[in-house]
């Protein structure tokens, strides 16, 4: 175990800006990207659903 306290962990031996700057940006990207993909899927599904409803209404 390298760290004696959480504060020490977050300080990263004086490299906090660089280490956390890298990891946080990486994490943000890796959270945002799937969310954007999911949203894209939702958007197209909603459009398809609406189209289907429109078609059913047309038939009636």
């Amino acid at each position, binding site marked *: 175990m390298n760290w004696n306290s959480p504060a020490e962990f977050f300080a*990263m031996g004086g490299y906090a800006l660089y280490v956390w700057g890298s990891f946080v940006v990486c994490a943000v990207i890796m959270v945002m990207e799937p969310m954007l993909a999911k949203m894209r899927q939702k958007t197209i599904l909603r459009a398809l659903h609406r189209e289907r409803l429109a078609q059913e209404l047309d038939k009636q």
Partner: protein
Amino acid sequence: MSNRIIHWFKFASPQSFYPLAGKMIPWFWALTAVFGAIGLWISFFVAPTDAVQGEGYRIIFIHVPASWMSMFIYMVMAAWAGLGLALNTRLSGMMAQALAPTGALMAFISLWTGAFWGKPMWGTWWVWDARLTSELILFFLYIGFIALQAAIDDPRRADKAGAILALVGVVNVPIIYFSVKWWNTLHQGASVSMMKSPSMAQTMLWGMLIMALCFWMYSIAVALMRVRAIILERETHTEWVKELPEVKQ
């Protein structure tokens, strides 16, 4: 023989791939989480402090996997694109299109983390070193691919044009990669000095490999998610899409 081909083509059809991808995605997410947890744990709690670089070196655990992925994804993307051009399968183009943003983001992560590493280690955010520059060029190749596809409306045309570009670009990748030889490079020297103590190298290597596996799983999972959306966008007017349970409900 022809039977086998037909079997193959069945999976290569968007219609059968769509549900298959849907079933695979959760598994890849689970693997991403598992490898990520182990990898991060090794990165921060098992791997010891580096003698030269202190704690700053821990960036390596995302920098190297991201760098590897960015190059690997390009190759895979070009392979899909080439397959699409040769066999005219619809799915290939969609796969290539789905992979490109992930690859571009990996290249971006590599650049970003490299810069954040370079500032404390080399005293500068950026040097025009061969490795760094070639990664930047790779990023541009991705952006070019994405921009070209975005600029063409007809998806079939966009696929073909993108495929030609990706294939031409792939010739370029090893060339820029080997251009390291003609440059005095800062990048390599730093990495060697860090690997001094063998015991440390051992845990670090493991950490890096497991994080790399995590990035692999992540890339597959997110590309599958995107390809599902792309399939729906392109097959809007087919019957099977209209019959999907997601659409019906």
